[in-house]
Structure formats: structure tokens, C-alpha cells
């Protein structure tokens, strides 16, 4: 292709956007609205995912130490635990600290138990955190085999349930995003297809005048790309601006410790890039696919 021809295609593609103004508005509008939806949903899902991760990573193993264990034994146990390679960190919590925490946890119910402080029936404890929630069970059973361990508890039931629930939530989320993206692709390429079908006569005339198919296709390629890119401007602005706003305002309000939003930078930028890519891709794809139909001899 000559450079002049390439320039011509680009010029034509751009001009076509202006010439078919109402179609451009419709196609860009479809891209914009669906991408806004995709963006909003992605922001929600990725953050929920993050929150789920945080919850999981809060889970830990409690190693109850034999009441008979001496200080040396306890240190040795600690060393053994520290050598396990799936363990991220661990700390020691004496039986007095445990009682205190328990009393606090129980709230007003717990006050009654303060009377028994002198006669603390609890064990000293090692609290162990693993890198992944999935490792809890394995590490726990390993530690159970160490000496001076009275019992090991990692809230197996609760954690398992939580893991399962998160898994469900993720499946639902992924299904939803996939559905949304498919819908977006369908709607956008549908709209572009319509704008092009409305120009089938034009394409027919070009062919009758001796234009090669590739010659006809190129300006539509450019046009589709521009449609997608222009259509992603507003969604990107919303992501960059809107997420900033949400991040500033919501992060403080959500006072459950385990809820923390993904940081604006780089998250908003990554998402924006993704939207731009989706927009351009769908634009080109819808455009080229639709033209193809009319280029059959």
C-alpha cells in the first residue's frame, strides 16, 4: 500500500465519522454506555475480590501449648514453626493475654469472667499466619505433630466455609463480567453493523467502480477504531475521576478493618487502559466483521 493511499484511508475514516454524524453518535453512545457499565462493575468486583482476599488472609492458626511446657520448650517450638516454609509470620501470646482478649471479645458477657483471672484455665498460644489461606490445613497438621503442642485450631469450619463462599462469589462475579462484556461486544458490534448496513449501497457502488475489497475495508477499520477510542473517553474519565472520589470518601467511612479499597494509582490507570483496549478492539472488530458481509461477490 502506498503511503498516499494509507493517508487517504485515514482521512476517509475520519471524515466518515463526521459525514454519518447520527450513526457516529449512536455507535459512540453504545460504546460509552456499555463501557461505563463494564467499568463500574469491574471496579466493584475487583474491590470485592480484594476484600475477600483480606478476609481470608486474616485467618490464622492457634497453637495451644502444653500447660506443662517449660520456657525452653516453648522457644524450641517457636523455632520449629518459624522454619516451616509456608508460614508467613507468627507470634507468641501468653495465657494472660489470651484471657484478656477473650474477655474483650465477649463484651458485656465477658465481664463475669474477670473474677476468674487468678485462676486462668487457658493455654499459652502461638498464633501462626500462612501466606495463603489454602495452606492453613497443611501447616496446622504439621504443627500438631510437634512436641509440647496440646492442640491446634485454625477455625477449620469457619475458614472452609469462608473460602467456599468467596469461591462462589468469585464465580458469580466472573460470570457477570463475562456476560457484561459479551453484551457490550454484541451491542456495540450490533450498532456498528447497523451503521454499516445502512451504507450497503455505498459499499456496492464502490465495488462497481472497481475498488478492491481491502481498499473499501481500510477506512471502516479506521472508523471502527476511532469509534471505540472516542467511546471510551467518558468511561475512562469516570473511572479516573469517579474512583478517585470514591477512594477518598469511602475508604475512611468503611470502618470495618478488613475493607480496604484498591489504591487509585495504579488501579484506575490499569482499568482505563483496559477500557481503551476493549473499546478499540470491539470497534475495529465490529466494523471489519460487518463490512465483510457486503464484500462477498
Amino acid at each position, binding site marked *: 500500500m*502506498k503511503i*498516499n*493511499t494509507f493517508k*487517504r484511508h485515514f482521512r476517509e475514516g475520519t471524515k*466518515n465519522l463526521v*459525514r*454519518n454524524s447520527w450513526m457516529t453518535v449512536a455507535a459512540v453512545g453504545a460504546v460509552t454506555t456499555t463501557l461505563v457499565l463494564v467499568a463500574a462493575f469491574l471496579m466493584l468486583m475487583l474491590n470485592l475480590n480484594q476484600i475477600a482476599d483480606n478476609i481470608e488472609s486474616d485467618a490464622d492458626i492457634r497453637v495451644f501449648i502444653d500447660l506443662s511446657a517449660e520456657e525452653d520448650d516453648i522457644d524450641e517450638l517457636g523455632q520449629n514453626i518459624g522454619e516451616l516454609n509456608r508460614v508467613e509470620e507468627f507470634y507468641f501470646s501468653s495465657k494472660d493475654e489470651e484471657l484478656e482478649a477473650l474477655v474483650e471479645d465477649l463484651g458485656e458477657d465477658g465481664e463475669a469472667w474477670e473474677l476468674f483471672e487468678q485462676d486462668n484455665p487457658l493455654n499459652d498460644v502461638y498464633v501462626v499466619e500462612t501466606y495463603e489461606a489454602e495452606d492453613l490445613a497443611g501447616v496446622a497438621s504439621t504443627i500438631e505433630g510437634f512436641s509440647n503442642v496440646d492442640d491446634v485450631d485454625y477455625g477449620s469450619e469457619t475458614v472452609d466455609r469462608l473460602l467456599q463462599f468467596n469461591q462462589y462469589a468469585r464465580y458469580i462475579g466472573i460470570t457477570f463480567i463475562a456476560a457484561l462484556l459479551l453484551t457490550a461486544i454484541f451491542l456495540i458490534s450490533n450498532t456498528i453493523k447497523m451503521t454499516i448496513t445502512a451504507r450497503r449501497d*455505498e459499499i456496492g*457502488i*464502490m*465495488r*462497481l*467502480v*472497481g*475498488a*478492491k*475489497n481491502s*481498499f473499501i475495508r481500510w477506512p471502516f477499520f479506521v472508523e471502527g477504531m476511532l469509534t471505540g477510542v472516542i467511546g471510551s473517553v467518558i468511561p475512562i474519565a469516570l473511572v479516573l475521576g469517579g474512583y478517585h472520589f470514591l477512594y477518598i470518601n469511602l475508604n475512611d467511612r468503611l470502618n470495618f478493618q478488613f475493607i480496604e479499597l484498591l489504591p487509585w494509582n495504579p488501579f484506575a490507570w490499569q482499568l482505563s487502559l483496559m477500557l481503551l483496549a476493549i473499546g478499540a478492539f470491539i470497534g475495529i472488530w465490529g466494523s471489519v466483521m460487518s463490512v465483510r458481509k457486503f464484500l462477498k*461477490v
Partner: protein
Amino acid sequence: MIEMNNVYKVYDNGVTALNGVKTTIDNGEFVYVVGPSGAGKSSFIKMMYREEVPSKGHVKINHVDIGDMKDKQVPYLRRSIGVIFQDFKLLPKLTVYENVAFALEVIEENPRKIRRRVMDVLDKVGLKHKARFIPAQLSGGEQQRVAIARAIVNNPKVVIADEPTGNLDPDTSWEIMRIFEEVNATGTTVIMATHSKDIVNKIRRRVIAMENGQIVRDEHRGEYGYED
């Protein structure tokens, strides 16, 4: 050279538009195609640039059967033929200039040459001053002249015209005919379907008369008429 051998054309809805057409048109000829409305003139002409393919029989352009032609080659065939369509077929969103230039852009002609050549041709058909108008802003006759300009702009080997003067007053018609004669004088084949008795009888050339999808008369330096 255009050869048709026993060509039949039956459209999807069962209408037989060509009913066994056999003829040869040599390079450089000037041919009128006459006949009543619905006789098959447009269908006959459409065979030559492969807008329609025969249902039966063979059409050969320079000894190449267009039935065997690969899809990729069709654009090249069409570039060598300038067609003036009965319904003009102008691109409605493009200006007069752009419509005519399109036929040159397609063959990736040098932009500067395009500009010169397009303005020359528009001048010839008397529409230089309307270069920036879009078709909807033109009168019927002006649109027809744009179609003529587009057909001859790239100096094709064959010019095919389907009633090129249907919307033109007699004076403009004669001017257009002069252009066709000029083009023909440089060796270009001209094939022209027409209803104009005046033109056919004054500028005497070969006349192919059609009726009911058949050639009923084929006469050199013939008169207008299609009764056998």
C-alpha cells in the same frame, strides 16, 4: 473485445431478461443499444462489467470468460470499464469532486494528478463550478453529468452508458455525445443504451435493437427502431 455466446439471464423472481443473446463487439466500436422499456438493455449491459452473471452461456471480455474470473480480478475488470448507471449511483455523502476522484483513488493514482484530471473532466461536463456540492444539491441532469464524468475520468478502454442523456435537455445531450465521440476517436469502445431517436438517427453508428431479451436487429450505421 466483448463476446457473448448464447447468454441467458433469469432473475431470482423468474423473469427472463436475456433470452439467448449472441454478439461480438470489437475494440474501438461505437454501439447503440435500443429497445422498449424492459427489453433487457440494462441487463445486457450489466453482463459486461459483471454486475450480473449469466444464468447460462458465456460472456468473454478480451477472451477471458467472466464466469471463470476470480473474485480478486473483478475490480481490475471494472477499472478498465467506465460505467454510467441508469440510476447514476453517486455516493450521496461525497461531493461532486470526491465522487469523481474516487475512481482515481481506487487505482492509487498520484494525488496531484487526481486533482488536475478531475477538474479537467468536470470542466468538460460543465460542472466545475459545482465541484463542492453533494448530489442532493444538484438537478437531475447535473447528477447525470457527474456520473458521466466519473465514468470517463480514468480513460477506460470501454465506456458503457445506460441512457446517459435521459435527464438532459437536447443541447446538453449533444455536448455529451460530442464527449463520447471524442473518447471513441481515441480508440475507446463506447456502448450506449438509449431511447433517443434523434441522437441515433443523427449520429449514425452500429445499432443493436433488443426486444423481449433478444437481439432483433444488429445494423451498422443503423436507424432507431426495434420492430422486426
